């Protein structure tokens, strides 16, 4: 019997990534405690996300590009998501792949914790800069490379246990 290890719950932190900013409450004695989003609480001290996790995430992003997984990895609020997926599905050749040439600096933007029956989820929003290259073979003109450097805003969910 094959069993999959983790059942991960995706949550929406309603700051950023929406059409307009929402208030990120500053905890104060008078204000009513408000969660960042459904079930998501603030952390006492921000837990740094290490470089290995960020590099692995960028690697996975490159691996899922131009595969059926790509659409699932884009947030619902990704701007013009439909136009991007229609373009990929309609135009990208089957052998086009994305290579990460380097992972640059990254920064933790905000973080929250959500309880889950299976443990606790640490949700971190990261900004990371990466140099990428699209590669594919054109039978007429040969090997094609298209480089670029982008800033990625990614939400990473890690599973942990509260101590």
């Amino acid at each position, binding site marked *: 019997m094959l069993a999959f290890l983790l059942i991960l719950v995706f949550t929406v932190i309603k700051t950023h990534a929406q059409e307009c900013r929402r208030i990120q409450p500053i905890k104060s004695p008078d204000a009513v405690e408000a969660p960042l989003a459904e079930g998501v609480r603030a952390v006492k001290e921000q837990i740094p996300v290490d470089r290995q996790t960020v590099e692995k995430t960028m690697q996975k992003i490159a691996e899922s590009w131009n595969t059926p997984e790509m659409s699932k990895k884009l947030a619902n609020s990704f701007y013009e998501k439909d136009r991007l997926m229609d373009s990929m599905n309609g135009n990208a050749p089957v052998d086009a792949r994305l290579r990460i040439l380097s992972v640059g*600096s990254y920064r933790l933007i905000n973080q929250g914790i959500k309880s889950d029956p*299976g443990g606790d989820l640490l949700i971190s929003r990261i900004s990371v800069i990466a140099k990428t290259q699209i590669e594919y073979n054109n039978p007429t003109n040969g*090997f094609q490379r298209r480089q670029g450097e982008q800033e990625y805003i990614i939400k990473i969910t890690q599973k942990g246990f509260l101590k």
Partner: protein
Amino acid sequence: MPVMAEDSVPLKDWAISIENTTRYENYDFWGDAAGSPYQNTGGQFYNELSTSFTRRFSDYESFQGRFNLLYNDSLYRSQYNGLVLERANLTWEKGNTRLPFRAQFGDNFSFMTIRTIQRSLKGFQLELQPQVISTEQKQSLLFFTGAGRDDYRDFAPVNDLFSAASYLIEDKRWGNYSFNLLQNHRASEIKDGLPARNQLVGSITGEKIFSFSKQKMTLEGEVGYFTGDYNLTANTTETNKDSLGLFGQLTADTGTPFNYRLRYENYGKNYRPNASSISSDYEGYEAHGGWRFAKGLNLRGRLQYFVDAASTANPADTYVAGANLTGPLAVSFLPGLTTGLDTFIQDAKNKDRTTNTRTANLNMNFGMPVRTWAAKLALIARNVENYADNANWAGQRSYETNLSATHAIALGPFKGSVTPGLIYQNMAGNATNRDNYGINLGLQIANAMHQIGFDAKFFSQNAYAPGTSNEMSNNAGFNYRFTKGPHIFGIETNYTDRDPTPGTATGQSSTQAYKFAVFYTLKLDKEPGKPISSMFSKLAGQPEEAAAASTVSPFSIGQPLEKAVEGLTAQGINGGLMQPGLIVYEARLLNEIDQRQRLVLLHNEKVVTKTALIIDFDDVGNQSTVSQTFERVRSILLKRFGAPVDAFEQGQFSPNFVRDVNTGKFVRITEWRTENGAVRFGIPQRLDRQIRMELQYAPKFPSRNETFWSVEEVR
């Protein structure tokens, strides 16, 4: 020896974390340079230091700092050589004053709205959240000024300086509204012949939730106004232009399985804020509808109409109709089948009909467990028809199929998965007659300290049009990582081999390229309240809190049986019932748990081979007490033993809890490693169908797929 006073221990109250990565890479290629993915060859090196430090003064006040410093000698890592400060941030947040504020210096992510600014800037940001009497309302005043830069080298903010103010009010009854103003200044550039450019963007947004004929609706909108200058091309500028940007969206939840969303966007020709990623001169009209079936199946439909270059003499219209179905499909002879189906038809044409295409696309994805494999199948069909006046090709179609399967593997202490895959595509029309096929293999295994990954891809492209060449390519990659305490060491290698028209030389030749990388990362942490030396204790390999007393506790495996029994008697734990091969005591070792506990010593007449603590549930029929009790015990154990090396769970606590455990659908296993062996906690399956929690201590445990790991002899 005088003891240092508490106050004089430096940085005592700070939480500090440091991570340093040193990385060396080497790239090279042979053959045709045009075929190599790596254009810069040779050795590349960098060293990166990232630090974060936090001080919490009270529940409501804290100060945090973070910075990333790079020493670079790599053509891939950064455009600069030498020392580069890439990111730096200091944040001070104080809530226990009359005017709670959050101030940030350095890097901050500046977000007002998608249509004004949504970018990382380097500068200063201040947010004030004035208190209002009513708990139904929250307000925020945001000011920021910053430069659009990726690092702090040659930092001249005036080249691209943003300054903004925003007022946001959120009211539970009346909705959320904001007023935003953003100014951008770009200095003149003599090299490109550009003058100084200024632009001002203002916007008003609103969002309101209301009910209308039993539907819960959310209406949101934004009106933006742009005035100023922008770059038309790299060296020409438009000055003193203005334009409106409009956005509106209605999202409705009808209370039935049907929900819908309507969206409208209209950006004028001159609506070009430098920090927004929306497209100017664009109109978009969208209608989305969704139907939620039972058991997680979701159907979504969309109708979209876009106009690009709307104000020019030759606008482009795109019409899209699409449908998307995802979720599990209940087909009786295909258990566990999940499906993703995506199809769309797109009609794109511009006014003078130099572009006029119709694209139809069908994308079917299936996933299903097959014996011990998780299989995935994708079938993709694509058809493009061209009606443009000047083109001489009528259509192009392609069919693709993509099959892969993942199998979990375990080799001793190593666990992982292997994934083979196949891909085949046939294209025709428009001089693209082609047969492409590929085979790939992915493998990864790991244990607590080592992680190994390997992947290989073979791809063959066979084109049948004059003037084209075939191509075969191979790719292989290997990576290894070693982790122990604060040290991480890794190797990554990558090989690419490309051979156009193998066997014949026709102007393009083959290329082989490789990349080799090795890195070392050191992570040090210090908790608040501990001295700085505690950061370095991990380097010596001593854990801060040694798993205490495992050698002399009665839980020791391999202890002579008599000693163990004596030790327990000394604690007042006696009266054990003897059974063949084991002794059972009624003993409450966890005082915090009221449920019945029994301690079991399993032996081979001479030494203790395994110990177990059996904890009963009060009422297995009551789902919430069962899950609460379980979680309570588990959190005690997590504090005691630290992070587990394995946590496996399947299924949820539900009213059918007993049945799920006994059919193997509900599994909970958490495992820790200690010096003498392993500790396992969870809810095992039993032959007599009794349900209870067990904490066992043994040299090792069977694989997690064996759910019958209970101490069966003790009923």
